[in-house]
């Protein structure tokens, strides 16, 4: 029935229009079908609930399609999705998370649908073609750097590079998210393992850092002055700073870690057209404006980031490969658990 409905559109397209206009017609059809579906469910871990709801409202305003946001930390969200899939329960339409390894697994299991949004062309070059087969696309990115409490440390006292965090003067002064819970910190730990080996964690452990559940949580510990330093995505640091909280960002000279996090459409999505339309939206300017206001990297050239967030062209960044995530995160999580005892 669906195909039948599309036939006249396709015929009309071929007959009357040429070139890229056909894609435009596709989107119009998708949008019409999405409006009929009226709703979608978004499993999201890559941004916090407040910004996810903000994005959902923007989508509702633009297309009249309601977004149900389900938000939790990366590995918890993936665990839920895995449960859904093994039960054959079609709950989620779109999945946005941090650990790219999760997407590779989903793709290999045939749980995703290949769909390349029109807007994918508009992405900045460094974010294009995250998956050559188009099963998932980069939609959110942030650089992992060091947050420090400005009441406890002057800018010149803040660590210059990742290895400076291992100085004995930071005994009981560091907070860090658990790499087995947080997708961002999983990426960070995998890079530390790659650069400095297991000894990095053994030396870090001796400093008795406070291990929280996520990068956002550890920003809060530093914000309150409970701890002085934490490795964490830049976005929540700057968001806190804008609220008048005494925190600042230090970009490590051995490389901030640029994590581009994917979104994908589930194969069993109960609202397949709304899901496709939402993927267009995630790569479009409106969503990127939400991201920019929350100090995430913008993924498109036509949306400018706020001036407080340094552009990745100004700093040295490390870009984890897909293999870094698929192999590195599980490996470093296990090393972490052995070194830290849990």
């Amino acid at each position: 029935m669906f195909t039948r409905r599309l036939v006249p559109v396709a015929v009309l397209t071929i007959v009357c229009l040429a070139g890229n206009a056909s894609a435009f017609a596709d989107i119009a059809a998708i949008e019409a079908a999405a409006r009929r579906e009226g709703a979608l469910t978004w499993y999201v871990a890559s941004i916090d609930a407040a910004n996810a709801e903000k994005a959902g409202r923007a989508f509702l305003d633009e297309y009249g399609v309601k977004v149900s946001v389900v938000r939790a930390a990366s590995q918890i969200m993936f665990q839920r999705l895995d449960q859904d899939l093994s039960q054959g329960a079609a709950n989620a339409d779109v999945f946005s998370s941090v650990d790219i390894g999760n997407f590779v697994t989903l793709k290999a299991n045939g749980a995703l649908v290949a769909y390349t949004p029109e807007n994918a062309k508009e992405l900045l070059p460094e974010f294009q073609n995250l998956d050559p087969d188009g099963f998932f696309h980069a939609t959110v990115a942030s650089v992992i750097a060091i947050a420090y409490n400005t009441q406890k440390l002057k800018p010149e006292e803040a660590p210059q590079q990742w290895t400076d965090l291992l100085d004995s003067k930071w005994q009981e002064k560091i907070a860090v998210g658990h790499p087995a819970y947080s997708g961002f910190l999983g990426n960070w730990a995998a890079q530390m393992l790659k650069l400095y080996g297991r000894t990095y964690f053994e030396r870090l452990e001796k400093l008795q850092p406070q291990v929280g559940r996520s990068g956002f949580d550890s920003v809060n510990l530093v914000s309150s002055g409970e701890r002085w330093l934490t490795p964490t995505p830049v976005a929540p640091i700057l968001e806190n700073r804008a609220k008048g909280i005494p925190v600042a960002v230090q970009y490590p000279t051995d490389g901030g870690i640029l994590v581009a996090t994917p979104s994908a459409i589930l194969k069993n999505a109960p609202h397949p057209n709304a899901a496709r339309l939402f993927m267009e939206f995630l790569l479009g300017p409106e969503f990127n404006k939400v991201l920019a206001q929350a100090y995430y990297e913008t993924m498109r050239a036509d949306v400018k980031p706020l001036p407080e967030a340094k552009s990745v062209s100004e700093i040295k960044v490390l870009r984890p490969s897909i293999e870094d995530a698929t192999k590195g995160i599980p490996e470093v999580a296990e090393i972490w658990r052995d070194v830290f005892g849990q």
Partner: protein
Amino acid sequence: MSVRARLRNLEPSFVVVVGLGAILVFLVLYPLFWLLVGSLYNPASGGFGLANFAAAYGRERYIIALRNSLVLGTAVTALCSVVAVPMAWAVSRTNMPGKTLVRMLTLGAFATPPYLGALAWILLAGPNAGWLNAAYRAITGSATGIFNIFSFPGLVFIIAIYSYPYLFVFTSTALDSVSSEMEDAANILGAGRWRTISRVTLPLVVPAIAGGAIITFLESIALFGSPAMIAIPARYNVVTTQLLEFFSYPVRVQVAEAYALPLLAVTVALYLLQQRLIGRRGYVTLTGKSGERRPIELGRLRWPAFAGCMFVAGLSVVLPLAVIVQAAFARTWTRGFGLDNLTWGNFHYVLLEQPATARSMINTFTFAAAAAVLALGLALAIAYLVERKLIRFAGILSFLCLAPFVVPGIVLAIGFYAAYAARPFFLYGTAAIMILAFTTRFLPIAYANAGAAIRSINPEMEEAVRILGGSRWLAVRRVLAPLLKGSLASAWLLVFIPATRELSTAIFLYGPNTQVMSVMLLNLTDEGRLEAAAAFGLLLLAAIILIALTGFGLLGRDFMVRRSE
């Protein structure tokens, strides 16, 4: 005998027993059966064996977590006993002032979700920024604070101050039904006050204390929220945080099942111990005959006793509430009190900006109320059959009612998940699976309360009905029900309140439309939104207190403050 004659001769109670048995099998046995089967099942080979047990106990840190949980449970239970039993005695049996206040604050401690308490104590006793440490540094001029909530003692403390109400309620309920006549008898025979307490009063309530202690122990090792917030930073791995590790991707449900099963042995042992403690001694104390309860004169100890009770209540309720309120109305909690730091924004955020959090409030109270009704109805029916020895093998039903306490909420959730999420039930992500899981989870509390309530009523009163020609049902309806009304209402609340704050069962069973407040609150703290979490927690607390006060208003002195006049 024809079939019809057989049916006519069929005892109605037999039908009832079979029905109740079937419900228990559905709620308790079938999920546990799936746990057992799963623990032996090897998904890779499709065969059965002990490989999961080898994996579950094959690492030192898994064994350490198991040991840590047992140490934690023991320490919490010991601390709770030391605190709650004297408090219960002072409130139930003495002329200590402010008894109603102490009962209310204890109810407040019971109503406080442990993870909200943990959040409050992070604000209070975080080693550097916590309010208490800041105050200590300001007063003494010391460079470092003295409290560290992120430690083993911190974890024991934070669990104990929200677990002691179990022992308190169990002990005081039992003490309330001990008539002064027995103590008078001891006095007349020459026993002094302390001898009377230790040889007459306390032994009478030992079963209640043991019951409360066992529940405290099992509850504390099954907790998920506080360990997630305190034990992970303290790097003190316990069973629930370890189970979380098994449940993270790649999920090792079967290993987790194997890891959790030996805890069953611990609980069975404790249950048998409790049975032995009660023994064959009769504890019928509410006889339907006149029994006077006179408060014991504390003399000069009146006010110190009150101060002691208030100290405990202050740590569990007053201080945490103060910092939660401060944070709930603060732009940022660290900036302290001040007009420029005041805002309604956190409430606006959780009620209006986040549809999911607002919806979770409705879910929470609907699920908890439904679960409390189901659990209590079931528990009451079974407790009556068991206590009145109306059927053979009643012990099995009794055991099934108590069995869920064995299973940490997380594991119960997985059992439910395995049993009911998929075909033929298809309950995955539905409200039904949440309500049924909550019912099972709190069946032991409902059963313990229903059992205690029925035990305390002398069967002679119902027997009188039977002798006078009334049916068993008439005896239940016209004698038992009116007598039980008050204790049943408080029992309902004792199930309802923990169900509203239940986290560990919910975390693996909720679906996109069945999220509950505990899950949302943990998500908010996960994100570091402590102010919004505090505001949300405050809403949860306010609702629970409102409901408890309504119960208090409706039932008057029968609810929680019973017989403290």
